[in-house]
Protein backbone atom coordinates (compact mmCIF):
# COMPACT_ATOMS: atom_id res chain seq x y z
CA UNK A 1 0.00 0.00 0.00
CA UNK A 2 2.84 2.38 0.91
CA UNK A 3 4.61 1.36 -2.28
CA UNK A 4 1.50 2.04 -4.34
CA UNK A 5 1.28 5.45 -2.75
CA UNK A 6 4.93 6.22 -3.50
CA UNK A 7 4.46 4.99 -7.06
CA UNK A 8 1.51 7.34 -7.43
CA UNK A 9 3.58 10.28 -6.22
CA UNK A 10 6.46 9.29 -8.48
CA UNK A 11 4.39 9.22 -11.64
CA UNK A 12 4.68 12.53 -13.50
CA UNK A 13 1.23 12.26 -15.05
CA UNK A 14 -0.34 12.49 -11.61
CA UNK A 15 1.05 15.99 -11.17
CA UNK A 16 -0.44 17.48 -14.34
CA UNK A 17 -3.85 18.53 -15.58
CA UNK A 18 -7.09 19.29 -13.82
CA UNK A 19 -7.00 16.02 -11.88
CA UNK A 20 -3.33 16.45 -10.98
CA UNK A 21 -2.04 16.88 -7.46
CA UNK A 22 -1.38 20.66 -7.71
CA UNK A 23 -4.86 21.23 -9.12
CA UNK A 24 -6.49 19.15 -6.37
CA UNK A 25 -4.39 20.94 -3.76
CA UNK A 26 -5.51 24.27 -5.19
CA UNK A 27 -9.17 23.23 -5.11
CA UNK A 28 -8.78 22.04 -1.55
CA UNK A 29 -7.25 25.34 -0.46
CA UNK A 30 -9.90 27.28 -2.36
CA UNK A 31 -12.80 25.48 -0.64
CA UNK A 32 -11.07 25.88 2.71
CA UNK A 33 -10.41 29.57 2.14
CA UNK A 34 -14.01 30.26 1.12
CA UNK A 35 -15.38 28.41 4.14
CA UNK A 36 -13.09 30.09 6.68
CA UNK A 37 -13.65 33.53 5.13
CA UNK A 38 -17.43 33.12 5.20
CA UNK A 39 -17.32 31.81 8.77
CA UNK A 40 -15.11 34.74 9.85
CA UNK A 41 -17.49 37.28 8.30
CA UNK A 42 -20.37 35.67 10.17
CA UNK A 43 -18.67 34.96 13.49
CA UNK A 44 -16.42 37.98 13.95
CA UNK A 45 -19.06 40.69 14.62
CA UNK A 46 -21.02 38.37 16.89
CA UNK A 47 -17.90 37.48 18.87
CA UNK A 48 -16.92 41.16 19.28
CA UNK A 49 -20.42 42.11 20.36
CA UNK A 50 -20.70 39.36 22.96
CA UNK A 51 -17.13 39.85 24.18
CA UNK A 52 -17.58 43.61 24.53
CA UNK A 53 -21.04 43.67 26.11
CA UNK A 54 -21.24 40.27 27.80
CA UNK A 55 -24.76 39.92 26.43
CA UNK A 56 -25.83 36.41 25.38
CA UNK A 57 -22.74 34.62 26.64
CA UNK A 58 -24.74 31.55 27.71
CA UNK A 59 -26.40 31.27 24.31
CA UNK A 60 -23.04 31.55 22.59
CA UNK A 61 -21.57 28.65 24.52
CA UNK A 62 -24.52 26.33 23.96
CA UNK A 63 -25.03 27.32 20.32
CA UNK A 64 -21.41 26.77 19.40
CA UNK A 65 -21.38 23.45 21.25
CA UNK A 66 -24.37 22.37 19.16
CA UNK A 67 -22.52 23.40 15.99
CA UNK A 68 -19.47 21.42 17.05
CA UNK A 69 -21.61 18.32 17.48
CA UNK A 70 -23.12 18.40 13.98
CA UNK A 71 -21.75 15.70 11.67
CA UNK A 72 -20.40 17.51 8.59
CA UNK A 73 -21.02 14.72 6.12
CA UNK A 74 -24.61 14.37 7.33
CA UNK A 75 -25.25 18.11 7.05
CA UNK A 76 -23.77 18.15 3.58
CA UNK A 77 -25.85 15.19 2.40
CA UNK A 78 -28.99 16.81 3.74
CA UNK A 79 -28.15 20.08 1.96
CA UNK A 80 -27.40 18.22 -1.27
CA UNK A 81 -30.86 16.69 -1.11
CA UNK A 82 -32.40 20.12 -0.51
CA UNK A 83 -30.32 22.23 -2.89
CA UNK A 84 -28.83 19.74 -5.34
CA UNK A 85 -25.18 19.14 -6.13
CA UNK A 86 -22.79 22.07 -6.30
CA UNK A 87 -20.35 24.08 -4.21
CA UNK A 88 -22.88 25.42 -1.71
CA UNK A 89 -23.70 22.25 0.32
CA UNK A 90 -20.10 21.29 1.19
CA UNK A 91 -19.24 24.94 1.76
CA UNK A 92 -22.14 25.39 4.17
CA UNK A 93 -21.11 22.26 6.09
CA UNK A 94 -17.54 23.59 6.36
CA UNK A 95 -18.71 27.05 7.45
CA UNK A 96 -20.68 25.42 10.26
CA UNK A 97 -17.59 23.71 11.66
CA UNK A 98 -15.44 26.85 11.22
CA UNK A 99 -17.77 29.15 13.16
CA UNK A 100 -17.34 27.78 16.73
CA UNK A 101 -13.54 28.14 17.01
CA UNK A 102 -13.54 31.61 15.41
CA UNK A 103 -16.43 32.77 17.55
CA UNK A 104 -14.84 31.40 20.70
CA UNK A 105 -11.48 33.02 19.89
CA UNK A 106 -12.94 36.46 19.20
CA UNK A 107 -15.28 36.37 22.17
CA UNK A 108 -12.67 35.11 24.61
CA UNK A 109 -10.04 37.52 23.32
CA UNK A 110 -12.27 40.56 23.70
CA UNK A 111 -13.82 39.48 26.98
CA UNK A 112 -10.44 38.75 28.54
CA UNK A 113 -9.00 42.21 28.01
CA UNK A 114 -8.11 43.58 31.42
CA UNK A 115 -11.11 45.66 32.60
CA UNK A 116 -8.73 48.27 34.04
CA UNK A 117 -7.33 48.91 30.56
CA UNK A 118 -10.85 49.36 29.19
CA UNK A 119 -11.74 51.69 32.09
CA UNK A 120 -8.62 53.72 31.46
CA UNK A 121 -9.52 54.05 27.79
CA UNK A 122 -13.01 55.18 28.73
CA UNK A 123 -11.56 57.65 31.28
CA UNK A 124 -9.51 59.39 28.64
CA UNK A 125 -12.68 59.85 26.61
CA UNK A 126 -12.66 56.99 24.12
CA UNK A 127 -16.04 55.93 22.72
CA UNK A 128 -17.06 52.27 22.54
CA UNK A 129 -16.17 51.98 18.86
CA UNK A 130 -12.65 53.30 19.52
CA UNK A 131 -12.26 51.09 22.58
CA UNK A 132 -13.09 48.05 20.46
CA UNK A 133 -10.91 48.95 17.50
CA UNK A 134 -7.92 50.47 19.28
CA UNK A 135 -7.83 48.71 22.62
CA UNK A 136 -9.74 45.44 22.74
CA UNK A 137 -9.07 44.00 19.28
CA UNK A 138 -5.29 44.58 19.29
CA UNK A 139 -5.06 43.00 22.72
CA UNK A 140 -7.33 40.15 21.65
CA UNK A 141 -5.34 39.44 18.48
CA UNK A 142 -3.40 36.38 19.74
CA UNK A 143 -6.60 34.62 20.84
CA UNK A 144 -8.45 35.66 17.66
CA UNK A 145 -5.67 34.21 15.52
CA UNK A 146 -5.65 31.14 17.74
CA UNK A 147 -9.33 30.62 16.99
CA UNK A 148 -8.72 31.16 13.30
CA UNK A 149 -5.94 28.62 13.43
CA UNK A 150 -8.25 26.03 14.96
CA UNK A 151 -10.90 26.75 12.33
CA UNK A 152 -8.46 26.44 9.43
CA UNK A 153 -7.09 23.17 10.76
CA UNK A 154 -10.56 21.67 11.08
CA UNK A 155 -11.76 22.94 7.71
CA UNK A 156 -8.70 21.71 5.83
CA UNK A 157 -9.09 18.30 7.41
CA UNK A 158 -12.82 18.14 6.71
CA UNK A 159 -12.87 19.67 3.20
CA UNK A 160 -12.33 16.12 1.89
CA UNK A 161 -16.11 15.64 2.12
CA UNK A 162 -16.59 17.94 -0.90
CA UNK A 163 -15.55 14.97 -3.03
CA UNK A 164 -18.53 12.96 -1.77
CA UNK A 165 -20.55 14.91 -4.28
CA UNK A 166 -19.14 15.94 -7.62
CA UNK A 167 -16.43 18.34 -6.44
CA UNK A 168 -12.64 18.06 -6.38
CA UNK A 169 -10.14 18.73 -3.65
CA UNK A 170 -7.89 16.17 -1.99
CA UNK A 171 -10.93 14.12 -0.93
CA UNK A 172 -11.23 13.05 -4.59
CA UNK A 173 -8.27 10.68 -4.03
CA UNK A 174 -9.89 9.25 -0.92
CA UNK A 175 -13.39 8.71 -2.34
CA UNK A 176 -12.15 7.47 -5.74
CA UNK A 177 -9.58 5.23 -4.12
CA UNK A 178 -12.13 3.70 -1.75
CA UNK A 179 -14.57 3.06 -4.59
CA UNK A 180 -11.90 1.19 -6.58
CA UNK A 181 -10.31 -0.59 -3.58
CA UNK A 182 -7.18 1.38 -4.52
CA UNK A 183 -5.86 2.02 -1.04
CA UNK A 184 -2.60 3.49 -2.34
CA UNK A 185 -4.64 6.33 -3.80
CA UNK A 186 -6.58 6.71 -0.55
CA UNK A 187 -3.27 7.06 1.23
CA UNK A 188 -2.15 9.71 -1.28
CA UNK A 189 -5.17 11.81 -0.29
CA UNK A 190 -4.72 11.20 3.41
CA UNK A 191 -1.01 12.07 3.37
CA UNK A 192 -1.59 15.24 1.35
CA UNK A 193 -4.39 16.44 3.64
CA UNK A 194 -2.27 15.74 6.71
CA UNK A 195 0.74 17.52 5.23
CA UNK A 196 -1.35 20.51 4.19
CA UNK A 197 -2.94 20.78 7.62
CA UNK A 198 0.44 20.53 9.38
CA UNK A 199 2.10 23.12 7.14
CA UNK A 200 -0.75 25.61 7.52
CA UNK A 201 -0.88 25.03 11.26
CA UNK A 202 2.87 25.62 11.57
CA UNK A 203 2.65 28.87 9.62
CA UNK A 204 -0.26 30.08 11.74
CA UNK A 205 1.54 29.12 14.94
CA UNK A 206 4.42 31.37 13.89
CA UNK A 207 1.96 34.17 13.10
CA UNK A 208 0.27 33.86 16.50
CA UNK A 209 3.66 33.97 18.18
CA UNK A 210 4.68 37.02 16.19
CA UNK A 211 1.66 39.05 17.27
CA UNK A 212 1.75 37.99 20.93
CA UNK A 213 3.46 40.65 23.03
CA UNK A 214 6.16 38.91 25.02
CA UNK A 215 5.34 40.79 28.21
CA UNK A 216 1.74 39.60 28.20
CA UNK A 217 0.88 36.00 28.80
CA UNK A 218 -2.02 34.82 26.71
CA UNK A 219 -5.06 34.63 28.91
CA UNK A 220 -6.98 31.42 28.49
Amino acid at each position, binding site marked *: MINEMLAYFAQGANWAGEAGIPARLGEHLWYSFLAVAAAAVLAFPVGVFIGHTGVGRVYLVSASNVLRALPSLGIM*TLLVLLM*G*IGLLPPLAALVLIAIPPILAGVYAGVANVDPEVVDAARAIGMKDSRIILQVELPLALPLILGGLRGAILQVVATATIAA*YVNLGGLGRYIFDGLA*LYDYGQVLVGAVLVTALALVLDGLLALLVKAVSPARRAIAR
Partner: protein
Amino acid sequence: MRKQKLPLIAALSVVAGSLILSGCSNPTAAPSPSDTASGGTLTVSSANFTESEIIGNLYAEALKDAGFTVETKFNIGTREAYIPALSDGSIDVIPDYTGNLLLFLDKNADVSSPDSILSALPAALATKKLAMLTAASAEDKDAVVVTRATAEKWNLKTIEDLVPHNDEVIMAGPPEFKERAVGLPGLEKNYGFAPVKFEPISDGGGPATVKALLDGKVTAANIFTTSTEIPANDLVVLEDPKNNFPAQQVVPVAAEGKLDDKAVAAIDAISAKLSTEELIKLNGQVSGDAKVEPKQAAITWLTEQGLLGK
Protein backbone atom coordinates in the same frame (compact mmCIF):
# COMPACT_ATOMS: atom_id res chain seq x y z
CA MET B 1 -31.35 20.73 39.50
CA ARG B 2 -28.91 19.33 37.04
CA LYS B 3 -27.54 16.94 39.64
CA GLN B 4 -30.97 15.55 40.45
CA LYS B 5 -31.67 14.86 36.82
CA LEU B 6 -28.49 12.95 36.19
CA PRO B 7 -29.51 9.56 37.66
CA LEU B 8 -32.73 9.71 35.69
CA ILE B 9 -30.90 10.47 32.48
CA ALA B 10 -28.42 7.71 33.23
CA ALA B 11 -31.24 5.28 33.87
CA LEU B 12 -33.02 6.31 30.70
CA SER B 13 -29.92 5.90 28.61
CA VAL B 14 -29.34 2.45 30.03
CA VAL B 15 -32.90 1.50 29.13
CA ALA B 16 -32.55 3.03 25.67
CA GLY B 17 -29.24 1.25 25.19
CA SER B 18 -30.66 -2.10 26.09
CA LEU B 19 -33.65 -1.50 23.83
CA ILE B 20 -31.31 -0.78 20.96
CA LEU B 21 -29.26 -3.85 21.76
CA SER B 22 -32.27 -6.11 21.93
CA GLY B 23 -33.56 -4.53 18.73
CA CYS B 24 -30.36 -5.58 17.01
CA SER B 25 -30.44 -9.19 17.96
CA ASN B 26 -32.40 -11.00 15.35
CA PRO B 27 -35.48 -12.68 16.75
CA THR B 28 -34.50 -15.84 14.92
CA ALA B 29 -35.12 -19.45 15.75
CA ALA B 30 -38.68 -18.79 16.85
CA PRO B 31 -40.27 -22.17 16.22
CA SER B 32 -43.00 -21.78 13.65
CA PRO B 33 -46.49 -23.05 14.45
CA SER B 34 -46.28 -25.52 11.58
CA ASP B 35 -43.48 -27.38 13.36
CA THR B 36 -45.46 -30.53 13.53
CA ALA B 37 -45.95 -30.75 9.77
CA SER B 38 -43.64 -32.56 7.40
CA GLY B 39 -40.17 -31.46 6.35
CA GLY B 40 -36.99 -30.77 8.24
CA THR B 41 -35.26 -27.64 9.41
CA LEU B 42 -33.93 -25.22 6.81
CA THR B 43 -31.82 -22.13 7.43
CA VAL B 44 -32.60 -19.23 5.13
CA SER B 45 -30.06 -16.44 4.89
CA SER B 46 -29.50 -13.15 3.13
CA ALA B 47 -26.68 -10.77 2.20
CA ASN B 48 -26.16 -7.55 4.10
CA PHE B 49 -28.56 -5.24 2.30
CA THR B 50 -32.29 -4.69 2.39
CA GLU B 51 -33.31 -6.15 -0.95
CA SER B 52 -31.56 -9.43 -0.18
CA GLU B 53 -33.24 -9.57 3.22
CA ILE B 54 -36.67 -9.03 1.62
CA ILE B 55 -36.12 -11.90 -0.83
CA GLY B 56 -34.74 -14.04 1.98
CA ASN B 57 -37.98 -13.41 3.86
CA LEU B 58 -39.99 -14.47 0.81
CA TYR B 59 -38.14 -17.80 0.79
CA ALA B 60 -38.45 -18.22 4.56
CA GLU B 61 -42.18 -17.55 4.70
CA ALA B 62 -42.93 -19.78 1.69
CA LEU B 63 -40.89 -22.62 3.20
CA LYS B 64 -42.67 -22.26 6.53
CA ASP B 65 -45.98 -22.39 4.69
CA ALA B 66 -44.82 -25.55 2.92
CA GLY B 67 -44.35 -27.22 6.31
CA PHE B 68 -40.66 -26.73 6.98
CA THR B 69 -39.16 -25.52 10.23
CA VAL B 70 -37.31 -22.41 9.16
CA GLU B 71 -34.45 -20.69 10.88
CA THR B 72 -33.36 -17.33 9.56
CA LYS B 73 -29.86 -15.86 9.59
CA PHE B 74 -30.23 -12.62 7.68
CA ASN B 75 -27.63 -9.95 6.96
CA ILE B 76 -24.65 -12.25 7.21
CA GLY B 77 -22.49 -10.19 4.90
CA THR B 78 -21.04 -10.46 1.42
CA ARG B 79 -20.28 -13.44 -0.84
CA GLU B 80 -16.94 -13.83 0.90
CA ALA B 81 -18.95 -14.77 3.99
CA TYR B 82 -22.05 -16.55 2.74
CA ILE B 83 -20.69 -18.75 -0.06
CA PRO B 84 -18.44 -20.67 2.41
CA ALA B 85 -21.36 -20.73 4.86
CA LEU B 86 -23.51 -22.43 2.21
CA SER B 87 -20.75 -24.94 1.45
CA ASP B 88 -20.19 -25.88 5.08
CA GLY B 89 -23.93 -26.23 5.79
CA SER B 90 -24.33 -23.43 8.32
CA ILE B 91 -26.94 -21.92 6.01
CA ASP B 92 -29.07 -23.74 3.44
CA VAL B 93 -30.45 -21.21 0.96
CA ILE B 94 -29.78 -17.56 0.07
CA PRO B 95 -30.84 -15.23 -2.75
CA ASP B 96 -28.08 -14.01 -5.05
CA TYR B 97 -27.65 -12.27 -8.43
CA THR B 98 -26.62 -14.25 -11.50
CA GLY B 99 -23.91 -12.05 -13.08
CA ASN B 100 -22.02 -11.06 -9.97
CA LEU B 101 -22.32 -14.56 -8.50
CA LEU B 102 -20.78 -16.08 -11.62
CA LEU B 103 -17.99 -13.49 -11.68
CA PHE B 104 -17.33 -14.19 -8.00
CA LEU B 105 -16.97 -17.91 -8.71
CA ASP B 106 -15.05 -17.45 -11.97
CA LYS B 107 -13.43 -14.11 -12.68
CA ASN B 108 -13.01 -14.92 -16.38
CA ALA B 109 -16.53 -16.19 -16.99
CA ASP B 110 -18.46 -15.12 -20.07
CA VAL B 111 -21.10 -12.69 -18.85
CA SER B 112 -21.95 -11.26 -22.25
CA SER B 113 -25.58 -12.36 -22.20
CA PRO B 114 -28.17 -13.45 -19.61
CA ASP B 115 -28.23 -16.93 -21.18
CA SER B 116 -24.46 -17.42 -21.16
CA ILE B 117 -24.51 -16.56 -17.46
CA LEU B 118 -27.37 -18.96 -16.68
CA SER B 119 -25.74 -21.80 -18.60
CA ALA B 120 -22.35 -21.31 -16.93
CA LEU B 121 -23.62 -20.91 -13.37
CA PRO B 122 -24.48 -24.54 -12.45
CA ALA B 123 -21.00 -25.82 -13.25
CA ALA B 124 -19.34 -22.90 -11.45
CA LEU B 125 -21.53 -23.52 -8.39
CA ALA B 126 -20.84 -27.26 -8.44
CA THR B 127 -17.16 -26.57 -7.72
CA LYS B 128 -18.32 -25.28 -4.31
CA LYS B 129 -20.89 -28.08 -3.89
CA LEU B 130 -23.68 -25.59 -4.46
CA ALA B 131 -26.68 -25.60 -6.76
CA MET B 132 -29.00 -22.96 -8.12
CA LEU B 133 -32.76 -23.05 -8.38
CA THR B 134 -34.71 -21.35 -11.18
CA ALA B 135 -33.68 -17.72 -11.62
CA ALA B 136 -36.37 -15.06 -11.41
CA SER B 137 -36.90 -12.49 -14.12
CA ALA B 138 -36.30 -9.77 -11.50
CA GLU B 139 -33.01 -8.04 -12.13
CA ASP B 140 -31.02 -5.62 -9.99
CA LYS B 141 -28.28 -4.32 -12.21
CA ASP B 142 -26.53 -1.13 -13.24
CA ALA B 143 -28.34 0.96 -15.80
CA VAL B 144 -28.08 4.26 -17.61
CA VAL B 145 -31.12 6.27 -16.55
CA VAL B 146 -32.50 9.55 -17.88
CA THR B 147 -35.56 11.66 -17.08
CA ARG B 148 -38.75 11.14 -19.08
CA ALA B 149 -38.33 14.66 -20.51
CA THR B 150 -34.82 13.92 -21.83
CA ALA B 151 -35.93 10.58 -23.25
CA GLU B 152 -38.76 12.24 -25.17
CA LYS B 153 -36.77 15.26 -26.30
CA TRP B 154 -34.00 13.12 -27.83
CA ASN B 155 -36.21 10.14 -28.60
CA LEU B 156 -34.08 7.77 -26.52
CA LYS B 157 -34.68 4.05 -26.19
CA THR B 158 -31.24 2.49 -25.89
CA ILE B 159 -27.88 3.67 -24.61
CA GLU B 160 -26.75 3.93 -28.23
CA ASP B 161 -29.31 6.69 -28.84
CA LEU B 162 -27.29 8.92 -26.52
CA VAL B 163 -24.22 8.81 -28.79
CA PRO B 164 -25.27 11.76 -31.05
CA HIS B 165 -25.52 13.82 -27.86
CA ASN B 166 -22.07 12.89 -26.49
CA ASP B 167 -21.08 16.56 -26.49
CA GLU B 168 -23.88 17.65 -24.19
CA VAL B 169 -24.38 14.65 -21.90
CA ILE B 170 -23.14 15.00 -18.34
CA MET B 171 -23.31 11.69 -16.53
CA ALA B 172 -23.44 11.05 -12.80
CA GLY B 173 -22.44 7.84 -11.08
CA PRO B 174 -20.32 6.46 -8.26
CA PRO B 175 -16.59 7.19 -8.71
CA GLU B 176 -15.78 3.59 -9.70
CA PHE B 177 -18.13 3.90 -12.70
CA LYS B 178 -15.49 6.01 -14.43
CA GLU B 179 -12.86 3.26 -14.23
CA ARG B 180 -14.61 -0.12 -14.11
CA ALA B 181 -14.76 -2.19 -17.28
CA VAL B 182 -18.57 -2.22 -17.19
CA GLY B 183 -18.69 1.53 -16.53
CA LEU B 184 -17.68 4.32 -18.90
CA PRO B 185 -14.92 2.28 -20.62
CA GLY B 186 -17.45 -0.43 -21.47
CA LEU B 187 -20.08 2.04 -22.64
CA GLU B 188 -17.59 3.67 -24.97
CA LYS B 189 -16.38 0.33 -26.31
CA ASN B 190 -19.83 -1.19 -26.82
CA TYR B 191 -21.81 1.83 -27.95
CA GLY B 192 -19.40 4.70 -28.57
CA PHE B 193 -21.13 6.56 -25.75
CA ALA B 194 -18.69 8.96 -24.08
CA PRO B 195 -20.27 11.76 -22.02
CA VAL B 196 -18.50 15.10 -22.17
CA LYS B 197 -18.29 15.18 -18.38
CA PHE B 198 -18.58 12.69 -15.53
CA GLU B 199 -19.78 13.82 -12.11
CA PRO B 200 -18.79 11.37 -9.35
CA ILE B 201 -21.36 11.13 -6.56
CA SER B 202 -20.58 8.61 -3.83
CA ASP B 203 -24.10 7.59 -2.83
CA GLY B 204 -24.43 4.51 -5.03
CA GLY B 205 -27.13 5.95 -7.29
CA GLY B 206 -29.07 7.10 -4.25
CA PRO B 207 -31.04 10.26 -3.51
CA ALA B 208 -28.23 12.77 -4.25
CA THR B 209 -27.68 11.22 -7.70
CA VAL B 210 -31.41 11.25 -8.43
CA LYS B 211 -31.66 14.85 -7.26
CA ALA B 212 -28.84 15.89 -9.64
CA LEU B 213 -30.69 14.17 -12.49
CA LEU B 214 -34.04 15.76 -11.65
CA ASP B 215 -32.45 19.21 -11.25
CA GLY B 216 -30.96 18.89 -14.73
CA LYS B 217 -27.42 19.21 -13.35
CA VAL B 218 -26.67 15.91 -15.06
CA THR B 219 -28.32 14.38 -18.12
CA ALA B 220 -27.90 10.71 -17.34
CA ALA B 221 -27.09 8.71 -14.24
CA ASN B 222 -25.95 5.24 -13.23
CA ILE B 223 -28.79 3.91 -11.05
CA PHE B 224 -29.75 0.33 -10.11
CA THR B 225 -32.76 -1.10 -11.92
CA THR B 226 -34.62 -1.98 -8.72
CA SER B 227 -34.34 1.53 -7.29
CA THR B 228 -37.71 2.80 -6.09
CA GLU B 229 -36.63 6.23 -7.37
CA ILE B 230 -37.15 5.05 -10.96
CA PRO B 231 -40.96 4.64 -10.84
CA ALA B 232 -41.31 7.36 -8.19
CA ASN B 233 -39.79 9.99 -10.49
CA ASP B 234 -40.90 8.48 -13.80
CA LEU B 235 -37.28 7.93 -14.86
CA VAL B 236 -36.47 6.01 -18.02
CA VAL B 237 -34.03 3.07 -17.97
CA LEU B 238 -32.24 3.00 -21.34
CA GLU B 239 -32.06 -0.44 -22.91
CA ASP B 240 -28.71 -2.20 -23.03
CA PRO B 241 -29.03 -4.48 -26.10
CA LYS B 242 -25.30 -5.26 -26.15
CA ASN B 243 -25.33 -6.32 -22.49
CA ASN B 244 -22.67 -3.90 -21.37
CA PHE B 245 -24.00 -4.45 -17.85
CA PRO B 246 -24.00 -8.18 -17.01
CA ALA B 247 -27.42 -9.62 -16.22
CA GLN B 248 -28.15 -9.77 -12.49
CA GLN B 249 -31.25 -11.91 -12.13
CA VAL B 250 -32.31 -12.92 -8.66
CA VAL B 251 -31.36 -16.57 -8.19
CA PRO B 252 -31.82 -18.81 -5.14
CA VAL B 253 -28.63 -20.67 -4.26
CA ALA B 254 -28.55 -23.72 -2.00
CA ALA B 255 -26.12 -26.33 -0.84
CA GLU B 256 -26.24 -29.41 -3.13
CA GLY B 257 -28.97 -31.85 -2.09
CA LYS B 258 -30.12 -29.75 0.85
CA LEU B 259 -33.56 -28.90 -0.54
CA ASP B 260 -36.10 -31.60 -1.31
CA ASP B 261 -38.62 -31.32 -4.17
CA LYS B 262 -41.18 -29.64 -1.97
CA ALA B 263 -38.79 -26.92 -0.87
CA VAL B 264 -37.58 -26.38 -4.44
CA ALA B 265 -41.17 -26.08 -5.64
CA ALA B 266 -41.98 -23.52 -2.94
CA ILE B 267 -39.02 -21.30 -3.86
CA ASP B 268 -39.41 -21.77 -7.63
CA ALA B 269 -42.99 -20.56 -7.31
CA ILE B 270 -41.63 -17.28 -5.94
CA SER B 271 -39.02 -16.93 -8.69
CA ALA B 272 -41.73 -17.50 -11.29
CA LYS B 273 -43.64 -14.44 -10.05
CA LEU B 274 -40.77 -12.18 -9.04
CA SER B 275 -40.30 -9.55 -11.75
CA THR B 276 -38.21 -6.38 -11.53
CA GLU B 277 -41.42 -4.34 -11.09
CA GLU B 278 -42.55 -6.54 -8.21
CA LEU B 279 -39.13 -6.30 -6.58
CA ILE B 280 -39.21 -2.49 -6.87
CA LYS B 281 -42.62 -2.55 -5.17
CA LEU B 282 -41.28 -4.71 -2.34
CA ASN B 283 -38.24 -2.43 -1.95
CA GLY B 284 -40.55 0.57 -1.89
CA GLN B 285 -42.64 -0.84 0.94
CA VAL B 286 -39.59 -1.55 3.09
CA SER B 287 -37.28 1.37 2.21
CA GLY B 288 -39.95 3.93 1.32
CA ASP B 289 -42.14 6.00 3.59
CA ALA B 290 -44.24 3.05 4.74
CA LYS B 291 -41.24 1.37 6.43
CA VAL B 292 -42.84 -2.05 6.51
CA GLU B 293 -40.73 -4.80 8.11
CA PRO B 294 -39.18 -7.07 5.44
CA LYS B 295 -40.97 -10.07 6.95
CA GLN B 296 -44.37 -8.38 6.85
CA ALA B 297 -43.81 -7.11 3.30
CA ALA B 298 -42.88 -10.67 2.29
CA ILE B 299 -46.02 -12.18 3.83
CA THR B 300 -48.24 -9.55 2.20
CA TRP B 301 -46.67 -10.09 -1.21
CA LEU B 302 -46.84 -13.89 -0.99
CA THR B 303 -50.50 -13.66 -0.01
CA GLU B 304 -51.29 -11.29 -2.89
CA GLN B 305 -49.57 -13.63 -5.32
CA GLY B 306 -51.54 -16.59 -3.97
CA LEU B 307 -48.38 -18.37 -2.87
CA LEU B 308 -49.38 -19.02 0.75
CA GLY B 309 -51.78 -21.62 2.10
CA LYS B 310 -51.81 -23.74 -1.01
